[in-house]
């Protein structure tokens, strides 16, 4: 089992969600985050005080998926989230030790 984490541009969330649904991923967790990579921040000016803000708002999607689906999930996210401009984001894949469905107690692949 793998945990696929993707940091994407906020406005791409709906497209990515749909792309994931269409290949059979049934549940995801979404968090609002901020960060930067190569995309520049901006300067804010409040009267005489200037602040350089490096952090940009992003969205983090996490999905626990079966090993067999990993390639297709990465492809789906990449395709949906790409704009071609700096700041599109990254995908991280982690090994997932254990998954439990709280309602039923199912574990492993049945819980995915």
């Amino acid at each position, binding site marked *: 089992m793998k945990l696929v984490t993707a940091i994407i541009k906020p406005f791409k969330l709906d497209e990515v969600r749909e792309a994931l649904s269409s290949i059979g991923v049934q549940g995801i967790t979404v968090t609002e985050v901020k960060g930067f990579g190569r995309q520049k921040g901006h300067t804010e*000016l*409040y009267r*005489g*005080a200037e602040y350089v803000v490096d952090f940009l708002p992003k969205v983090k999607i996490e999905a626990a998926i079966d090993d067999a689906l990993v390639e297709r999930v990465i492809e789906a996210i990449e395709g949906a989230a790409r704009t071609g401009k700096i700041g599109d984001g990254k995908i991280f894949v982690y090994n997932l030790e254990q998954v439990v469905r709280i309602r039923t107690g199912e574990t492993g692949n049945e819980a995915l």
Partner: protein
Amino acid sequence: MKKLLISLALGWGILTAGSLALAQTAAPAEVPAVIAPAAEAKPADVAAPAAAAMAAAAPAAAEAAPAEAAPAPVPNKGDTAWMMVSTLLVILMTVPGLALFYGGLVRSKNMLSVLMQVMVTFSMIVVLWFIYGYSLAFTEGNAFVGGFDRLFMKGIWDNASGTFANAATFSKGVVIPEIVFAAFQATFAGITCALIVGAFAERMKFAAVLMFMVLWFTFSYAPIAHMVWFWAGPDAYTSAEVVDKLNATAGYLWQSGALDFAGGTVVHINAAVAGLVGAYMVGKRIGYGKESMAPHSLTLTMVGASLLWVGWFGFNAGSALEANGFAALAFINTFGATAAAVLAWSIGESLHKGKASMLGAASGAVAGLVAITPAAGNVGIGGALVIGAVGGFACLWGVTGLKKMLGADDTLDVFGVHGVGGIVGALLTGVFASPSLGGPGYVADWVTATGVAAADYSIGAQVWIQAKAVLTTIVWSGVVSVIAFKLVDLTIGLRVSEEDEREGLDITSHGETAYNR
């Protein structure tokens, strides 16, 4: 145990003070020199107090007047209603206007502390005004401070006979109930002190703020209000013989001929200097210049600025003390100057930094309002537009270039806006009051209430008088502020601890948070 004893002492003190106030006899205190002739007929039931020339209040008192005295003036209902509305408008300016304007500019962890400091300062000063502030400012004393004729507002109305004392306006034979005048002026005292809070926001002890306010209100606000605004009133000037004697009873700066319609010196420069001194003496916020201290809600700041604009019509136009043409002039000048200043700040900012910001527009509005305050009823409409525009540009410099030069952490730019704007406005009042520039000039002879002849108005001379008033205010407020802050520092300390400052004053000083998810 200690807290219990302090609370009991405070409570006992308030009860004693309260019962002293209630124990005042209905008959007014002996009346000083300045009364309208008609009032002398019935001193017992006519409250003819010391504040700017009072005419008899009770309708019954009109008889038995000396031959040449006119019947005692009675307040006009329109004037009275307008002044009560103006009072309301100035309250609106402070709570919630100023409170939100300041509050939105600080970090969210300090929002409530700013709201508290503004609201509680305002409330405390209003109470002190009723107790002794009004008396010190608006009764006859010497050229620098008044006396105690109106301690606890005694004599301001007679509860036994149901008569009310009157206060003079700027027109002969026109009066308003003195209670309304006192209430109106109470809001001025309150907002002036509340303004100072912005300079040391986010790091000062709550008790220290209040203690400082008591001292500064007593020794700087009341005297300067007395010096600039206290005089005998137009009805006292009955003939040429009394002019010199009457002038000598007026405040020091009034006597000098300084023009300050609604408080450029008394309110803005006074508070701004106190703020700047405070910013220096309290010290910079931890992390100033390194950490982000961006405003947490410019939306609320804009709401606050808008309430300030609306309320300021009461502040300026109400300072005419009646609903007449000069109130209307002050009204329209308040309108025009502010609009011009918004444009000036926005244009200046966009030329200088590339973008015009919301905070800039809101600050521009306040800058224009400050600048037109001393000028409101003293200049023509064109003059007001110029004052607003110049004020806008000047205050933009005040919060950028000047702020860097001064090197203090004047958190909410109290000096940058109120100090610079007040000074610019006060000086330009001397220019644009000139009849040659569309202004009404000033009254040269209160016996006949005639204005100065256009040819006799010297812009240079008047600007010099204005400059002296500005300098006097700066020095007086500066000295009082230094002493007051020092006293507070030596007794209870000015600043909160570093951990408290980092965590935020809302939770550490007031035990609450503004925004709970």
